[in-house]
């Protein structure tokens, strides 16, 4: 069973450490300036080079999967939307699709288009955010400032459509809750043109600016075979040339009707990821322009009963970070029997660990940022009620004692 007491786990850990001398183990995190969310990576070094990485995640568990089992179907949709503060819409979209699969209702065509528009706006938002962070970690702050300024363009549009910048709460079962406002079309098309121009300019920058080239070229190389075996998803699969894109492979929403090209690259380093995400941004901007100009008329939602028929169904879709996967099981009641959600960062973490091997310690922030990690997403489940705040206070002294006991159990015994 899973139950090892804390002390037994410590003993095992320290036994494992005996293989390596104390100098070549570097703890990275859980609180580290290069990580915006708390995760712990145990880096084992040989000189400056990383030979092994052991992850420990779960610092920001919120217990969503357990919590979902005691909440009504529709309430869960908005709860799962709060899994992530960046790709929030795609969570509710995928959960919604999984549940809709159990019912007999068809989603109106207009709702499908609106879902596509919002999902693509979100992708642009996420990719811009990432490019900015990449500039930050590569030591190119100007890029960070510029890109995050342009990100406001997307956030303003999202706010105009949904009333909110991040948590759009646009989805509901078999439709969307809000229609596109009147007269938005020209504004969206014009703003998308602006973003395409900016993205082209940034592409030029990352290709010529020496800071970016030196920090990213040749860093974090993996082969397509490795990426495939490690089940990499999204941009992490596409940057080595694998054609994994759920929008194309298994179209959902209106992706069958909106033309677009899948972007892949061959180089397989962090620099390729930068260019890949900027190219995808341009593709998304063009998709949005097309979708708003071809928006069909009609209803935006169908009302469905609160009881979902028994059965099991899964759905996946392409989040900005890669494939997002939901599995739902219903026993025909008002609450789900089981909801499983798998976030792209969880799928990409083994690939990131592989990318880190052979890199120097100085490259760790760049490589870890390269996968566009969202640890908050990854840690979504455990045993806490999200409605109540997690209260876990430790005094500095307790924390220090815990740290000493964790790393040097013998020293604590002597006292």
């Amino acid at each position: 069973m899973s139950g090892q007491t804390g002390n037994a786990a410590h003993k095992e850990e320290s036994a494992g450490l005996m293989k390596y001398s104390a100098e070549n183990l570097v703890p990275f995190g859980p609180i580290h300036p290069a990580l915006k969310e708390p995760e712990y990576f145990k880096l084992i070094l040989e000189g400056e080079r990383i030979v092994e990485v052991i992850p420990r995640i779960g610092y920001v568990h919120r217990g969503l999967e357990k919590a979902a089992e005691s909440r009504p179907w529709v309430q869960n949709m908005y709860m799962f939307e709060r899994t992530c503060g960046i790709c929030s819409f795609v969570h509710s979209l995928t959960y919604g699709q999984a549940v809709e699969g159990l019912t007999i209702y068809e989603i109106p065509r207009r709702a499908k288009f609106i879902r596509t528009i919002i999902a693509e706006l979100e992708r642009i938002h996420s990719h811009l955010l990432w490019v900015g962070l990449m500039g930050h970690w590569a030591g190119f702050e100007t890029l960070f400032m510029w890109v995050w300024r342009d990100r406001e363009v997307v956030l303003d549009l999202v706010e105009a459509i949904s009333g909110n910048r991040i948590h759009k709460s646009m989805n509901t079962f078999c439709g969307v809750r809000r229609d596109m406002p009147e007269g938005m079309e020209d504004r969206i098309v014009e703003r998308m043109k602006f973003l395409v121009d900016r993205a082209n300019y940034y592409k030029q920058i990352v290709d010529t600016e020496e800071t970016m080239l030196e920090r990213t070229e040749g860093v974090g190389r993996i082969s397509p075979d490795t990426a495939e075996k490690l089940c990499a998803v999204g941009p992490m699969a596409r940057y080595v040339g694998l054609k994994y894109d759920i929008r194309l492979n298994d179209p959902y929403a209106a992706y069958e009707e909106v033309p677009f090209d899948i972007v892949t690259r061959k180089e397989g380093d962090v620099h390729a990821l930068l260019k890949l995400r900027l190219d995808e941004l341009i593709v998304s901007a063009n998709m949005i322009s097309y979708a708003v100009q071809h928006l069909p008329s009609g209803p935006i939602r169908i009302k469905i009963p609160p009881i979902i028929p028994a059965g099991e169904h899964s759905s996946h879709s392409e989040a900005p970070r890669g494939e997002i996967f939901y599995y739902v099981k219903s026993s025909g009641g008002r609450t789900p029997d089981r909801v499983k959600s798998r976030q792209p960062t969880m799928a990409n973490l083994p690939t990131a660990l592989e990318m880190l091997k052979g890199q120097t310690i100085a490259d760790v922030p760049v490589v870890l940022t390269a996968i566009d990690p969202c640890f908050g997403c990854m840690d979504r489940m455990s045993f806490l009620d999200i409605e109540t705040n997690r209260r876990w206070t430790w005094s500095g002294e307790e924390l220090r004692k815990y740290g000493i006991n964790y790393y040097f159990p013998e020293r604590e015994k002597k006292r």
Partner: protein
Amino acid sequence: MSGVLLPQIENLAAEAKTKSTQLRKGETIVEVDQSQLKNFIKRLVTETNARHLSTITGLDLDPNIGIIYHFWYERNTIHVKTFVPKTAPTALSIVDIIPGAILYEMEIHDMFGVMFTGNPWMNKKLLLPDNWPSDLPPPLLKNAKTAEIRKRLGLEVEKK
């Protein structure tokens, strides 16, 4: 391509002495016995195009624990379902076939208490805190109560 995939899966299922059921369009489920599972998955990823493992789901189906491996290729999702008894929750790890499954197995180990023999990181915790009491049931089993877990971990919140 999907025209080829589904007959291939039917064949594989027949060889594992089970059969594949189409849940709905594009979704196939195969219930495979624990003893046949590793061989089935090995042949699935080497002989067919369904090589990408989306994730592994654990299910509390009293008296068993269900484990579902979700694969996909193009417009087809293949759920490979297997069962382990709750009294002896041990399953064979597929890390040697699909290295990317390592974290998913650790997650099920944490959340359902299933031991995957052959997974090198089974002695580590991935998601649960280090001070998780060993006598509590794994959190995603139906008999694990949120209130009790919160109490035992000292995470109770004072109500105003």
